[in-house]
C-alpha cells in the first residue's frame, strides 16, 4: 500500500486520538443524553415495532446518527483547520494524488464514525439491549453511511473558508437531514406528505437499513436502501474526486 496514503490516514487518526475527549467522548456523552431523555419521556407512550421497547428502537437510530455526524465532522473540521492555519501546505507539497487524499480523509472519517458509534452502542446497552439479528447489514450501512458523510465533509471542508460557513453546512444540511431521517420514529408514524418527503432523504435509508441489522424489520427493503446509499456514495465520491482533481480552493 502506498506509504503516502497510509501516512495521511494515520495522521488523521492520530489527530483524533490526540483530542479524544472532544472527538470521541463528547459525542458519546451527547448521544447518551438523548437516549436518557427521549427514552425516559417516551418509553411508556410509544411502541414503533411490535414487541420492541422504544428505548431499544431508539438505540440503532442514535448510534447511526452519531456515526454519520462524526464522520462528517472529522473530514470537514480537519480540512478547514488545516486550511485556516495553513498547514495543509505540507500535504499539498507532497507527491500525494487526489484519490489518495480522498481515500485517506474518507477512511479516517469512517474510522471515527465507527469508533463513536461503537462507543454509543456500548454505553446504550446499560439502558436496553436491542436484538442484533443481522450484524453484517448494520456494519455495511455504518461503513457506507460514514463514507458518504466523510466525503461530504471533504467537500464542505474544501468549500468553507471560515468556521461559520462550515457550521451553516452542518446546521442547515447535515443536522436537519439526520433528525428528519427516522432516528427517533418510524416514517409510518408520519402524515403521508412527510412520509413521501422522507423518501427523498438519503439519511432515511441509512438509518432504516442500519436498524434492519438490529431488528430484522425496516420501513423499506434493506436491499433498496443499500442501493440508494451505495448510489449516493458513488455520486458524492465522484463529485469529491472531481473537485480535488480540479484543485478547487486548494491549488490556486
Amino acid at each position, binding site marked *: 500500500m*502506498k*506509504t*503516502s496514503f*497510509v*501516512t*495521511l490516514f*494515520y*495522521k488523521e487518526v*492520530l*489527530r483524533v486520538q*490526540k*483530542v479524544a475527549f472532544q472527538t470521541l467522548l463528547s459525542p458519546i456523552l451527547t448521544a447518551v443524553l438523548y437516549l436518557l431523555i427521549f427514552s425516559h419521556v417516551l418509553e411508556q407512550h410509544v411502541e414503533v415495532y411490535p414487541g420492541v421497547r422504544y428505548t431499544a428502537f431508539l438505540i440503532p437510530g442514535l448510534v447511526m446518527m452519531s456515526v454519520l455526524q462524526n464522520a462528517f465532522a472529522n473530514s470537514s473540521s480537519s480540512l478547514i483547520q*488545516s486550511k485556516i*492555519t*495553513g*498547514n495543509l*501546505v*505540507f*500535504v*499539498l*507539497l*507532497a*507527491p*500525494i*494524488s487526489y484519490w489518495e487524499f480522498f481515500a485517506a480523509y474518507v477512511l479516517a472519517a469512517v474510522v471515527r464514525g465507527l469508533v463513536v458509534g461503537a462507543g454509543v452502542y456500548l454505553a446504550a446497552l446499560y439502558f436496553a439491549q436491542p436484538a442484533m439479528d443481522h450484524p453484517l447489514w448494520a456494519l455495511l450501512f455504518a461503513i457506507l453511511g460514514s463514507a458518504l458523510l466523510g466525503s461530504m465533509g471533504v467537500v464542505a471542508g474544501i468549500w468553507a473558508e471560515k468556521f461559520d460557513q462550515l457550521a451553516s453546512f452542518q446546521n442547515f444540511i447535515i443536522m436537519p437531514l439526520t433528525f428528519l431521517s427516522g432516528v427517533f420514529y418510524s416514517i409510518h408514524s408520519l402524515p403521508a406528505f412527510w412520509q413521501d418527503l422522507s423518501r427523498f432523504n438519503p439519511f432515511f435509508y441509512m438509518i432504516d437499513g442500519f436498524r434492519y441489522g438490529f431488528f430484522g424489520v425496516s420501513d423499506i427493503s434493506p436491499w433498496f436502501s443499500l442501493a440508494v446509499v451505495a448510489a449516493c456514495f458513488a455520486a458524492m465520491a465522484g463529485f469529491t474526486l472531481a473537485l480535488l482533481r480540479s*484543485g478547487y480552493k486548494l*491549488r*490556486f
Partner: protein
Amino acid sequence: MFPAVDVRQVSKRYGSLQALDGVDLRIEAGEFFGLLGPNGAGKTTLINLLSGLARADSGQLSILGRDVAAQYRDSRRLLGVVPQELVFDPFFTVRETLRLQSGYFGLRHNDAWIDELMHHLDLTDKADTNMRRLSGGMKRRVLVAQALVHKPPVIVLDEPTAGVDVELRQIMWRFIQRLNREGHTVLLTTHYLEEAEALCGRIAMLKRGRIVALDSTQNLLNSAAGCRVRMRLSGELPAVLAPHMIERVGEDYLLALSSYPALETMLMQLREAGLTVLEMSLQQPDLEEVFLRVVGKA
C-alpha cells in the same frame, strides 16, 4: 543533463493582476540561485507554480526534467520547499511532524536522517515538544527540516530568514551552504540583499511578473560601474568636482565616480586646486544599489 529548474514562457493571472508574464528561467543543477524583487513582483507565485501549489495559465515548468503538472509525483519528490508563512500543525510534536512529512514523501524509516536534521538545526532538545510550544525561530527551523526530510536535490527557500535572529540565520545558512556544496541546488528569495550577495552565484530580479535582470552576482555588481569616494580635504571641494558630489557628511564629501581611472583624474584636479586629502575611503557598489537601479528603471 537536465537543468534543476526550467521555466518556459510561464504566465499566471489572478483576476486583473498579471502575477507572471512570460517568464523564462533556467537554473543549473548545483547552483545557489537568488530570486529578488519587490513585494508583489511574482516571486512566491513562481515558487507556488514550481511546487504545484498553483497552476500556470500557460507555459511549462520542470524540476530536473520532470514536468510539474504531468509528472507531479516525481517533480515534488525532487523539490523541498520552505514556505514563507510560519505554518505548523498544532497537534503534533517536532519528531511526529518530521515523521509524518517523511511518510507523505513515501519514506517509512527515516529516523536516522530526521535525527541528523534535528542535530544540524539545533532541534534535538525539542524533538518531543509540541509544535505549539516552540518559539517562532524554532518553528522556522522545523519548517526547514520538513523541506529537507526527503533529501530533495532542489531546495526552495521562500524568505526563510524573515524575522529570525542572527544566530538562527547563521545556523541555517551554514547548513544550507553545506547542502549546496554537497550538490543540492538552492533557490532563494529574500529581502536581505546582503544575504543574496554573499550566498548566490546567480541572481534574477523580478518586477511586475517579468524578469528584469538575470546574471551572475559578480556581473550584476560590476554593472553598477564605478565607486564611491568619501574624503576629507584641507579646504572646500573645487567647483570642477561639484557634479560628482552625492552629499556632504559633516566635514566629509561623498562623491560618485564612473570608474576607477576617474579616481586618478579627481586626485589630479585636487592637486591642481592646491588641496590635500586628509582622509579617504573607497566604497564598493553593493547589491542594494544594483537592485534599486534595476528595479527602479524597469
